[in-house]
């Protein structure tokens, strides 16, 4: 009976590709999440400052 074809290198390459794409995607999720978190904090800070300015402006006018 013939032995199976020697395709071990292709098996390894296949699994490197599978896990490689998964890792890249997970990293992209983490990076995007981190950036969005930073943006959200910055925007909340800006919103707060804007509200304070509006308040000050209102108090000066009254």
């Amino acid at each position, binding site marked *: 009976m013939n032995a*199976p074809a020697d395709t071990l290198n292709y098996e390894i390459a296949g699994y490197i590709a599978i896990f490689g794409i998964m890792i890249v995607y997970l990293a992209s999720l983490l990076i995007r999440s981190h950036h*969005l978190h930073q943006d959200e904090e910055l925007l909340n800070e800006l919103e707060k400052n804007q509200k304070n300015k509006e308040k000050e402006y209102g108090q000066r006018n009254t």
Partner: protein
Amino acid sequence: MNEQTAELSVPIVSSRPRLLKILDVISVILLVAATLMVFLYAPIEAVMGPVQKVFYFHVSAAWIGMLSFLVAAVVGIFYLRSHDSKWDVLALAAVELGMVFTLIAIVAGSIWARPIWNTWWTWDPRLTTVTIMELIYAAYWMLRNGIEEPERRARFAAVYAIVGFISVPLTFFSIRLFRTIHPVVIGSGDPSATGAFDMIAPMAQTFAFSLVTFTIIFIDLLWHRYRLGLRSARVEQIKMKLME
């Protein structure tokens, strides 16, 4: 888990819920177990040799790709009925995951094909339909990026996800309907297919375990991507509010 603010329609995304943390741990454990089953438990196929083992994760990834596009179409219907932006966020998450898993299936399949078909790529009905399917969902992305107004964008994207879903059954049944060299492992296919094999019990068990593992990973990633989408929508809303 989420609290609604009076001014913004998108809820604040709180820290990772307990159930999601548990799901993360289960996903990692299952992925490690599935990988060990593939490499240590599943036998080496008699003709193709070790490369046949790519099949377990290749088919599982393809299954998740199709499941994701089904989810996108279903939540697209929900969005059109309710106009609730959470369904749009979920549809986007599902399409993104569908594209990633379909890409995994295509790349893994191409690596398998090299020693078995003696080519990295051929325009076989299955390979052609899966490429068209991936391109259809790449266009979904472009469509979204081309529309500024959030409600209009969500409406168009929902309709597109529903219509685009036609490509999924076409891809699934292509190897059962057309003359093809792509093997059909479950059910009967073209007798001229190259690389077909009979699954013995340990192979079937590894295959079933991989399918379950990928499904759990899909739920976990979908949840993460949904939360990311909510955060993104909220940032977009705050920006618009500040610009007013």
